[in-house]
Structures are given as C-alpha cells and as structure tokens.
C-alpha cells in the first residue's frame, strides 16, 4: 500500500526528464516544450495525465522501448476510429494508464479557419490531453490522449461541430487531397469535390470495419502528386489532361531571355523524360504533345508560360502500399483517363471506387491489400472482374516471358478491332 502511495505522489509532481530535456534546445519547435506546458497547466484536468505521460516517455527514452498496448475502446454506433492505448507500465505512471487517440477526418485539403481550430482546442482541452497531431499519415487529425470515459464525450462534442470519425483497422481509411483547384493552377479536377463525394458515399465502410484489410483513397491534382497517392494509397486519383498543353509563347520568350538558352535547355528541354520538347530558333517552345506524358516538369519550371490542357480528367492507379507482406508496391494504372467535368463524371468515379472496394472486400485474403491481391490473381483477372479493357497504358512494356497460353488470342484481337472502330467513330459522333 505504501509503495503505491509513493508512486502516485511521485507522478503527480513534474517528473524528472533529463533525456527529453535535451530535445528542448535547438531552433526547431519542440514537442517536449509543448508536452511540459500541458503538464504544468495545474488548473487543467489534463495536467496529472500529462505529467504521467512525460514520465512514461522519459522511461521509453531510457530503455529504448515502447510501453503501450492496444485494446477495445470505441464510440456508440461506430466500430472504429479510436486507437486504444493502455499503458503496460501503469503501476509507475497511473494517470496516463489510458491514453487513447481519436482519429478524426479533417476538412478535405486540410483547410481551416482559426475559429474552427480554436473550437477543436477547446473540446480537447475539456475532454482530452490537450495534445493534437496535425495530421497523421492518412490525413486524420489525431486527438491523442483521452481516458476511456472521455472518448465518447470528446467525440460527441467534435461531431456536434461537424467533424466525424476517421478510419482505423480493416476499414476504409480517411483520405487526403492536395490544395488543388482552391489555390493551384496545375489542378486538373476538383480534388476536394472528388474526395468528399467518394469518401462520403462510402462512409459506412469507414465507420464499420468489415474489409480484409485497410483501403485508402488519395486525390492529387496532377503528376506532382502532393499527397503521395501513387505509393501511399490503394486507389490513387491523379489529375491529367488529354489535349495539348497550353503554351504562352510570348511568356516563353521572356523567360528564355531572362534566364538564358543554356539554362532553359539544361533545366527544361533536356529534362523532359520523353524528349517531347525543343527550343525553336526564335526562342519559342516546340512541344510534341503526342510524346508528352504530362509529367509536369516543364510546367513546374515555367509556371507562367505553360499550363495543363483544357480537356482535363484523371488517371487512376490501384494497389500502392508499403512493405507488408510481399514488399513495396506502387499503384499501377487501371484507368488511363477518365474525364472529370460534369456531375456524372464525378458520379462515375464514385461508382468505380465502390466497385473496386466491393471486389476487394469479396476477394482479398485476410490482411491482404488490394495491390497484393492483384499480384496474387493477376491484373487481367482484376480488370475482367471490373469490366475494364486492357490498355497499353497499363504496362511499362508487354510481357517478356513466352510461357503463356494464348487460346483466346483471335477473339481478343477481334475485340480490340471492334474497340478501335468504336474509338474512330466516337470523335465523329461528338463533332455532329
């Protein structure tokens, strides 16, 4: 009994943190200073919890080990969104024995006004630890550190002001979109609209984990891929365009004059990955749009002179993920181009997202990501299940192995011919 008392007393004092203290020096903002500020706020309910947390973190720094375990904590009506954390050294650090995280979906594109940020702070000051991460790797606002009892209260308060739980476990996860159309001339669709339409249509799959494993959508407005969709999402939506890029030749000439031909040749022309550019004798730009792959490099260098074309849409890649279990995968193209302009275009994107998610749910093995499932069943089976025709944009190059049966070759050639016919007729129909 006396032992327990001594420990409790010890943790309600500021713990000694000689190792963490070393992270308060140096010019970059220090999270340790922030933690201490919370721990020293004697008038706040979280002060004892944060003193205890600092003690446990110092203990981790001393022993180079983590001391949290999972468990089951949630909010009523949902099956996910809370990351339960129970301390396994609660006997030494009792006030932070429960330190759960709420993953909350941020506004698409991570836009806030200060009023909203202050509201989030007030809620977390009342019900949580006062510690918030903006943002987690899937884009969630992470409200870190609530007791089991307070999780529901914090969620209710957040939910009342328009915020909703994000994903955790084998579920659809919170999504991210770049700043996009809101502030970027390189945006090729309305990223925030696509993000919200897809995710909010599928919101049930976020709140009630029922998938084989996690599934992530990410939305970037162009090939610069500012939200890292290609590798970090199962379903990457990347903006692009089909027609010719827009060139303001007068502006090109000005830039060439300003920076010199050598710089433009070295930094623009010669860095084009498909040799689609050359500088004309009159210092205008010659663009071979048929060879251009919309990589964005020249547009990044000459923002004022070059812009995406006008016939805009998205390329969709599926299957990006990190190492577990078979190794890293980049997403690969399943839709080379999907027009993104009308309401119907966006609805088609939502439908495809639903279709892929459903096929994943029905066919992936336990703890298998969609990319791994495709490796296991082959891309062709995946495409056939979705009713998507093979396209040469889906490969870096055709197969190199001769070990293949070609029973259906003639039929497939016939189908390809029909599709080509359809394609050549389509523009004529559109022109009418």
């Amino acid at each position, binding site marked *: 009994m006396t032992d327990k008392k001594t420990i409790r007393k010890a943790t309600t004092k500021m713990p000694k943190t000689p190792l963490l203290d070393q992270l308060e*020096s140096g010019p970059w903002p220090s999270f340790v200073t922030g933690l201490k500020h919370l721990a020293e706020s004697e008038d706040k309910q979280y002060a004892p919890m944060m003193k205890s947390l600092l003690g446990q973190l110092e203990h981790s720094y001393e022993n180079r080990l983590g001391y949290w375990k999972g468990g089951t904590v949630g909010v009523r009506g949902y099956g996910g969104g809370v990351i339960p954390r129970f301390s396994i050294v609660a006997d030494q650090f009792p006030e932070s024995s429960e330190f759960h995280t709420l993953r909350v979906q941020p506004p698409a594109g991570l836009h806030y006004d200060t009023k909203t940020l202050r509201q989030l702070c007030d809620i977390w000051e009342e019900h949580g630890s006062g510690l*918030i991460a903006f943002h987690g*790797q899937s884009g969630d606002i992470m409200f870190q550190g609530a007791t089991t009892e307070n999780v529901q209260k914090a969620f209710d308060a957040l939910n009342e002001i328009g915020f*909703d739980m994000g994903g955790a476990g084998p579920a659809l996860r919170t999504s991210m979109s770049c700043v996009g159309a809101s502030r970027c001339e390189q*945006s090729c669709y309305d990223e925030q609209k696509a993000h919200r339409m897809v*995710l909010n249509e599928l919101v049930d799959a976020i709140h009630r984990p029922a998938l084989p494993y996690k599934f992530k959508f990410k939305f970037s407005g162009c090939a610069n891929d500012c939200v*890292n969709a290609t590798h970090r999402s199962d379903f990457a939506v990347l903006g692009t365009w089909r027609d010719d890029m827009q060139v303001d030749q007068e502006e090109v000439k000005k830039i060439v004059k300003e920076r010199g031909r050598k710089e433009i040749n070295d930094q623009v022309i010669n*860095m084009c990955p498909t040799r689609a550019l050359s500088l004309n004798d009159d210092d205008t730009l010659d663009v071979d749009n048929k060879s251009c792959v919309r990589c*964005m490099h020249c547009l990044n260098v000459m923002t004022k002179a070059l812009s995406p074309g006008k016939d805009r849409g998205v390329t969709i890649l599926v299957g990006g993920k990190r190492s*577990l279990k078979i190794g890293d995968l980049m997403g690969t193209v399943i839709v080379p181009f999907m027009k993104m302009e009308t309401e119907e275009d966006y609805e088609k994107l939502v439908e495809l997202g639903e279709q892929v998610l459903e096929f994943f749910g029905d066919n992936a093995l336990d703890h298998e990501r969609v990319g791994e499932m495709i490796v296991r069943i082959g891309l062709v089976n995946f495409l056939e299940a979705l009713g998507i025709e093979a396209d040469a944009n889906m490969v870096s190059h055709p197969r190199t192995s001769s070990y293949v049966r070609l029973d259906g070759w003639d039929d497939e050639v016939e189908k390809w011919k029909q599709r080509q016919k359809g394609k050549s007729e389509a523009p004529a129909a559109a022109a009418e």
Partner: protein
Amino acid sequence: MDEAHRTPIESGCPDPIPLMHPIMRGNRGNWKYHDRPRPGVLRHVTNDGVELWTVKAGTQRQMDVYTIRRLCDIGDEFAEGHVRFTTRSNLEFMVSKEEMVVPLIEKLEAEGFPVGGTGNSISMISHTQGWLHCDIPGTDASGVVKSIMDEVYHDFRHEEMPNRVKITTSCCQVNCGGQGDIAINVQYTKPPIINHDLVANVCERPAVVARCPVAAIRPALVNGKPSLEVDEKKCICCGACYPPCPPMQINSRDNTKIAIWVGGKHSSTRTKPSFHKLVAAGLPNNAPRWPEVAEVVNKILKAYKDDGRPWERVSEWIDRIGWPRFFELTELPFTKYHIEDWHGDRHSLNASSHVHF
C-alpha cells in the same frame, strides 16, 4: 441514470470551402500561375490578376493546444484568419496583400516557427508516432524529427538544394513514414523473443503464422502449452509477427537499429515514382538525439547539395552519377547486404556493361 444514446451524425469528411480564405473560395479553378518571391512564400495569381500570398511555417506536428492557439493568434492578428496544413505538417497562412507578408514572417520567426519549406528546400520530415503513442515502436519519431530538423534548419529556411528534399522517419519496419529522398527507418537485427506463457491466450496463432513473409513461424507445444516457434535461420527480423502477437517481442534496447535509405520519390515528375534504397544500416538507436543518424544524413545531404544539378531529386542525381560514385561521395561502405535477394531481385542487378570508373 443511463442517458439516451446520442446517435452519431455520419457527416464524413467536412466541407473545406466555408473554411478557406475568401480569395481561394472565390477563385477555385481560376488560377493562372504562381511564383516564389522568397523562401517560404508563394504568390498565386488568378486569371483576373488577383493575388494570394502564402507564408509557410514549420510546426512540431504533435502540438499542444497552447501552441495551436498561438498560431491562431498570429493567424488572426498578422494574417486573415485562414490557414491550411500541408501533407508534411507545415502550416500555411494565406493573405491578400503583399505588405502583410514581412510582418507575418517576422512574427512567426519571433515566436519560434521557422518560415520555409518551399521549392528546393528541405521540408519538414514526415513522421509517425513512436514511443509517444504507438503500440509497436522500435524508436521515437518526434525526437528523431526534432533532432534532424535542428540539423537541417538552415536548409528548411533557404532554397539551396538541387530540388526539394523529402525526408521521412519510421519507427518500425511497417514504415508508416513512407518513401523519402532520405528515409530514416528502424531495422530490426534479431528474431523475436517469445513469451511462451502468453502466446496461447493473446495471439490468434494461424493468423500470426500467415503474417510471416518467409514462412518461418510454425505452431508448437512449448512446456506443454500451445505456442509458436520461429525458425531463426529463416527469420528476416522484419517484426511482422509482433503486431498480431505482442508476446513475440521484436524490440530490444540494443538490437533495434536504424537504417538509412535514399532515392524514394512519390511524384511522376520527370522520372516515374521510385522506392528508396538501403545505403546505411546498423546505426544505434541513440536517444534522445540520434547523433550517428544525423551524421549519415548530413553526409548524404552535403554530397547531394554539392553535386546535384538543378531539379534533380536524390534518385535522379544518383541515376546520373551512379551508385559507386554515390558511395564514394558519401563515404558510406558498400557491402553484400546492399545486394537485393527479395522477389524481383534481378531487376536491381546491373545487366549490362555499363560500369562507372
């Protein structure tokens, strides 16, 4: 006394449009071009000539409410009340007038928030949870990030690198931090140590067996109890068994090491996206400042800064100079462990007579 249950409002992802700066709200899809008048500052111009100025500041990501409110105060007093976080936890303040930019920068820096992270700078390190909150971490994340950002502070605030540099950290081999020009990741060096008394009660054994990438785990009866055993010769020490089965402890004070990887790239800009590659390993998990890690990262950054050409990302720089030159310039040893032996290994071998001298 059980109150009636409140039904959650399944509102999903909030609408950002009411929250964003009025100039953004009014000009969605109407932007013409942007430039960077100085490091940390972006100027976006609409087709109608309306300007929006953005000032980008670094934060510690794990923020206390006092820090967030301080940033809000700055946003209200020196900006126009609208902010945006980037993917890498930088905070952007949007203002409509050029004359607001300098006072905003001065205030942010006076309050300890560095302004930078634009263009060819070293941006904030993307990081994970670590000892602060994760249930399986081999190291901390916030501490590593703080230590390295202190080191690269100058290059966050200046645009002096060949191109942008994205550094990532990860506290275990699941690698939540993702691909980076430079990735600082935990690398385990010993098989898990199993607490056989707990396995049967805590772990779903078939699921754990299935999780192993090299089929090194099998069910076993140990001291009369159902448990799991690891074929230690096959084990690649990846730690994949630890999350579904905590009694298979992969972390250890001295055997959890840090490895450095380079050349990860997410964008399709110029070259296709690429994975980072192992260049250094066996570095000690030396909290609280990880000086040995910082030393290697600094060497790589210095070589890239000196030798990279404008717009070359780290992967593109190495594509040009070749791996032998990379190891020479960074003075890092090249060993047999750098040669891939995982699936697809032959794609990483040099099948040509192209040799660098």
